[in-house]
């Protein structure tokens, strides 16, 4: 990793030029919520001015640039002799600008499952390797609890990461691709005062967290509290709508659906992101459902995050972005669920 600084003016020029030559996605305002707060999403931008650089967090996570909601795994082409299967992993390079630390950490978690271990997922790898990520530090929102999950700091998984230190940005450069691009613009060596400002800023950001949840020993607790009434309590609220998993930066489960083209000449095998909260997630032949109740399914989502994933990778799958609560019509709040489980809410 290299450490440099870049002036705000130069960053603007840099990003403007990147936008000119690459498909670039960055946060823009798309709506406002009941309290009149802006809602942001990563959308394709045509100029630096469109970007809301001081955005809070995007409503949907950036995982969908790597795991699209829907994606053709392969296509079948029918002919007189039968059929032929075709697979293509080609992805055009694109740039994501303004990605938060927790979201980059979420990608690292996905990398564990989808790039390493058994049966690496070529579709994901193709997207991951063709996405240039420029990260950006920010003040946490009141409901962000990434600090509790150690995901508010990044050390890898990005190309460039920026921290605002007043007149300029402190810059972490983490790929040769990034290094080559930066040759186009003036960047500066880190000076003593920059380092001071950087550390100060980092400490300031860390001190701003208001939401905390203790996840130590959570993995075992999940097993111990498997029959807990807490699940019933939250399960009664849950609408089994799957919104949480759709916006979550690390939920990756899916369903597969095949479609024959009306012409009967081709068919496609489509992967669609699913959610373990949906009623037929664990339904098998014969109609048996392993998780018939909404509370079973809600529990399972937490179980995968705080036990299953920990067992495999020694860390939780949740990064603490709290998008799931924002997207949940029933306002189910992961911090409250986990606290309930720790019996911290009982006075």
């Amino acid at each position, binding site marked *: 990793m290299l450490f440099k600084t870049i002036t705000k003016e130069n960053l603007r020029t840099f990003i403007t030029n990147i936008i000119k030559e690459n498909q670039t996605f960055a946060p823009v305002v*798309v709506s406002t919520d009941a309290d009149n707060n802006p809602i942001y999403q990563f959308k394709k931008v045509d100029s630096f001015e469109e970007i809301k650089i001081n955005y809070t967090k995007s*409503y949907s996570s950036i995982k969908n640039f790597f795991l699209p909601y829907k994606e053709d795994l392969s296509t079948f082409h029918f002919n007189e002799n039968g059929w032929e299967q075709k697979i293509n992993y080609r992805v055009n390079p694109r740039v994501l600008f303004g990605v938060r630390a927790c979201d980059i950490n979420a990608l690292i978690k996905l990398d564990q499952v989808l790039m390493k271990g058994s049966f690496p997922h070529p579709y994901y790898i193709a997207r991951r390797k063709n996405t240039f990520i420029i990260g950006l530090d920010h003040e946490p929102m009141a409901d962000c609890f990434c600090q509790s999950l150690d995901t508010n700091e990044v050390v890898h998984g990005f190309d460039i990461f920026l921290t605002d230190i007043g007149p300029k940005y402190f810059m972490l450069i983490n790929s040769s691709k990034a290094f080559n691009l930066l040759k186009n613009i003036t960047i500066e060596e880190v000076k003593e005062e920059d380092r001071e400002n950087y550390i100060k800023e980092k400490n300031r950001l860390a001190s701003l967290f208001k939401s905390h949840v203790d996840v130590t020993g959570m993995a075992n607790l999940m097993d111990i509290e498997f029959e807990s009434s807490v699940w019933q309590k939250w399960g009664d609220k849950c609408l089994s709508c799957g919104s949480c998993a759709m916006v979550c930066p690390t939920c990756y489960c899916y369903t597969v659906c095949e479609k024959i083209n009306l012409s009967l000449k081709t068919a496609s095998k489509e992967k669609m992101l699913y959610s373990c909260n*949906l009623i037929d997630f664990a339904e098998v032949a014969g109609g048996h459902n392993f998780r018939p109740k909404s509370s079973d399914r809600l529990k399972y989502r937490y179980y995968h995050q705080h036990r299953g994933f920990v067992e495999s990778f020694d860390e939780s799958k949740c990064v603490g972005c709290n998008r799931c609560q*924002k997207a949940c*019509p029933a306002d189910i709040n992961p911090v409250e669920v986990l606290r309930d489980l720790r019996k911290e809410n009982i006075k």
Partner: protein
Amino acid sequence: MEFSGIPLKKLRAAFFDFTSCEGCQLQILNHEKNLPDFLSLIEIVNFREISSDKRDDYEIAFIEGAVSRKDQIDRLKDIRKKAKLVVSLGTCACYGGVNAIKNNFSIESMVDEVYKENKPETIPVQKISEIISVDLEIPGCPVSKIELEYIILCLALGSVIEKKKYPVCIECKQNMNHCFIDKGSLCFGAITRAGCDSICVNGGLPCYGCRGPSASVNWMSLKNILIDKGITEEEILEKLSLFNSLNEVIKDEN
């Protein structure tokens, strides 16, 4: 005919309209790109709106619209006798649809108000399955042509027709919409069966449930959520009854 080892059957289909806006029938002619392929999968033997040919040897009868007059009942029974497979096409046929709002008023006062003389005969609105047995329901106001294409293809191939069990919210998220409930308004997407690609929410309108309930409905929770947001029970009921499609959901309430 055969498709990759599977026998392919060109089904003789008829389309009939009852009390409706005929918007669902219109969808059959839409999605123009696929229309020639679509028409090659079925043989249309009766479709008054676009053809003056009329034959009674149909295997599948697609019924659009609800019942709102006595003579329609006999017409329906006759269709049931002739068809091997009866399909309710659209929300009117499956649930009564917008027409059923009429059932909140007394027939007599209604007729009096609109017709001073030459008063027509009319009965309360009923869905098709209240009159005859229905083999397949394809709700939607209007039906989604893409879904209809899929169903016709399944019928031609003799394959199982899979209904989505999950609610509209999933599709709404796929379309990266901001949730109406987070905006403080009402939406029934969380209890409505997906398959429309959340087309209403994409366009700026909440989902009022034209496709009927999804496979897992938690009405009590949704109702509490809406009331928490400051939406009145009266408004919830008004919107819930737009299509007459979510009635069974409220029944659970008691």
